[in-house]
């Protein structure tokens, strides 16, 4: 079911299910991300992409299934997930709005530094050295995303596109092996989207694997080595851009069924059959269903 490559597996989510009371937001989703890979996660609104992300990062504890990073199962605590090596950005920007740009990135370095309260109070040489290194690395990152000249601005004063960039820089500051991007181009114009694309490639070239949620299809198909499609909490298809783009069920899931009495009854029947195969039978045998769909 998964494309096995010679690369090492960075992230492995197997059989992840998330239920909120009676609502199953994510249903037995398997996903792997290999090193050096950019994997996309797409799906219509409400498909459970962000919920799945939250399961990966320990913000939610999955009802079933497990998530492991480089072979070790992740503890269900966000800060431990981050120190293990997974960093994330948020769909609706969550910067520390009243801290400066530099401070935001420094907070991202929290897991890679050790200085506690005592060393802060005593200010020994170790503390000064650690602060200097942190500052230096943070400035390097700001240089990398092109915000070094705004290091002393408050994060809230940055224009929207730069806030998105800063979120990425803050996530990178934790020196992750895997970066999760939740809709990094939401609300961006085409130029900004292209710049983000460049940035994501540059991050990949640093040896960081990337998992990205996105609505902008052009962006995602340009960018990703592999794309997984999530519909109503289940993984519909996974494969290269071409495979996913050609899949009729994906089209149906995005565009919906044609309205009643529309010409082309045959197509309608086809789409309905596809939907029936994917969605309605899921109650009886969800796992077999996904597995058959995914065989490529």
């Amino acid at each position: 079911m998964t494309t096995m490559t010679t690369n090492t597996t960075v992230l492995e989510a197997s059989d992840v299910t998330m239920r909120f009371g009676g609502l199953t937001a994510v249903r037995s989703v398997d996903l792997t991300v290999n090193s050096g890979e950019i994997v996309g996660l797409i799906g219509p609104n409400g498909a459970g992409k962000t919920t799945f992300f939250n399961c990966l990062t320990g913000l939610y504890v999955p009802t079933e299934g497990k998530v492991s990073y480089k072979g070790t199962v992740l503890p269900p605590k966000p800060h431990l997930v981050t120190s293990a090596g997974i960093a994330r950005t948020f769909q609706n920007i969550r910067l520390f709005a009243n801290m400066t740009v530099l401070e935001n990135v420094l907070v991202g370095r929290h897991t890679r530094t050790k200085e506690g309260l005592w060393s802060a109070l005593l200010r020994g040489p170790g503390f000064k050295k650690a602060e200097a290194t942190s500052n230096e690395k943070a400035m390097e990152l700001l240089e990398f995303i092109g915000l070094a000249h705004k290091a002393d601005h408050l994060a809230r004063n940055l224009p929207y596109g730069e806030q998105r960039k800063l979120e990425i820089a803050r996530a990178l500051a934790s020196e992750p092996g895997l970066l999760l991007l939740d809709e990094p181009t939401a609300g961006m114009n085409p130029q900004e989207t292209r710049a983000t694309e460049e940035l994501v490639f540059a991050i990949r070239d640093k040896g960081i694997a990337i998992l990205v949620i996105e609505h902008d299809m052009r962006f995602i198909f340009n960018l990703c080595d592999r794309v997984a499609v999530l519909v109503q909490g289940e993984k519909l298809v996974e494969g290269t851009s071409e495979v996913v783009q050609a899949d009729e069920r994906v089209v149906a899931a995005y565009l919906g069924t044609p309205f009643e009495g529309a010409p082309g009854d045959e197509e309608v029947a086809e789409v309905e059959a596809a939907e029936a195969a994917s969605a309605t039978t899921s109650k009886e045998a969800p796992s077999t269903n996904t597995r058959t769909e995914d065989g490529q």
Partner: protein
Amino acid sequence: MTTDTTTPSTHTTPVLPLPTTAARAGVLTGAALALAGTFLAWTQSDAFPGNLTVTGYPGGLQVITLVGAALTLLLALSGMGIRGLGWLTPGGKNSPVRLTALGVLGTTAYAMTAISAQLGGTINLEPGAWISGTGALIAAVAAFGLPADLPADDTITGFRARFKHALKAPTPGRAKELPNSAEILIIAAAFGTGLYVFAYGIDAYSELFVGFFITTALVATALFRAGLIARLNRLTAKHRTITLTAALIAAACFPFTQTDESYALIGANILIFATVALGLNVVVGLAGLLDLGYVAFLGVGAYTAALVSGSPQSTFGIQFPFWAAVLAGAAASLIFGVLIGAPTLRLRGDYLAIVTLGFGEIFRITMNNLNGSAGPDVTNGSQGIPNIPDLELFGFNFGMPHDIAGFTLGRSGNYYLLMLLFTAVVVMVFRRSGESRIGRAWVAIREDETAATAMGINGFRVKLIAFALGATLAGFAGTVQAHVSYSITPEQYLFANTVPPNSAFLLAAVILGGMGTISGPLIGAALLYLIPAKLQFLEDFQLILFGLALILLMRFRPEGLVANKRAQLQFHENDQLDVPEQRTDTTAVGTAKAGA
């Protein structure tokens, strides 16, 4: 300011339609008259405090009027561009004049009303008072005939809007580079002036304090509008260590300016209050945890120190050396902080406020009940622990007056200096912890806890450290408080009371002064201690006036008196120029996706 894009016509028309030259002449004559009036008698009877009866020698409220009028004159002359005075008004030229003129008017009007009310009728006013009053009125009216400092557009209409606009001023430009030594001298002079004003305020009797307060508040605003405060801030930011040293020296000089023991005691109590407020600032200002029972930690420290102080009424009957008592007090508070924090800090938001509020009360009631009848005899219940002996460190008895360099330092003065040392330690702890990895983590948690944990911060642990550190600092200060106040009782540690420190006043001091700053809580605490202490005739209305003042402050200056850069930008959004509003509004997208 409202920058206009549609109407190009801006103007600086004054509130009152006077020719500028006439207005200037009015201000100068008015201020000069008010000044001259202070040299004449204001009343015949010396029943009114301050001796306002002597001609040729101003006293009491006359002195304050004199200073205010002189400042008005100086600022007005500086606004006219007189050579050598330009440095006084790098920012606004005319709005400072308006503010000081209002201050003089307020003080003289208050003085005249108070004399008439106390002595029975305006018949008691001598010509001097009338001259000063008329002068102040002329100056204030004429000052509003001076042009506005900022150009107004047509959107500012109505008297109120134009009145408010007339008091605004532009921020000053970059100052001329001065040699380092000159800058340091300026800082020293500023702290010297600050010390003098503070000492004057502490010594003032009720009537004088009201006049003092009116004038100081308006003159401080005037200096702010004139841009002098901004200039000074730039200097202090540049020489931070020197500023801290200067502040420390100025504060250490305070007891030497006091001849009266009771005023030195006010100083010591203000320091205790301010130190505890600064400790609370770690919890509230940096980590954003609302603690409504903070005074209990002060109590824990004070009780611990009292129990081991060797007081004959202490059930322990042992006497620790002072350093051990301090460590014991801080450690006891630390333990209580961890005990209270550990179960509650896992929760977010208001739960902590409720639990700490409860803890504050539980502490007080427990201390009341550990009296031998309702519970084991530890604290003597509501009797408290009296007769706490004075400290003696290295042969220096804190209870005795000592002669130092020709000045006599009484008991309160001694304790003031000891407390100052504690304050300095707390300031250092606050500053160092705030500017470190842990301090950044606190602010991050305060800003957005979810994002902070996603950045690898262990929210619970970091919050617990803040909470425990805050508790420790309060306990630390409490050990001195026990000795300063001779005896401690549970009723000193209430949630709300008319006498600080109590939890409500501590929180108010932090918020009033400015959250997350060092000088904010210190200034806030000084004001909150002095105002109730000086205005005792308000007795029954104290708390309601206090509430009213807080509401007004939150309405007009939510970031507190001393704003840090962050808060200033946070509360006054119009300073933001480069944030495209609609595109940052991701909440619409967010809510649409929340169902996922």
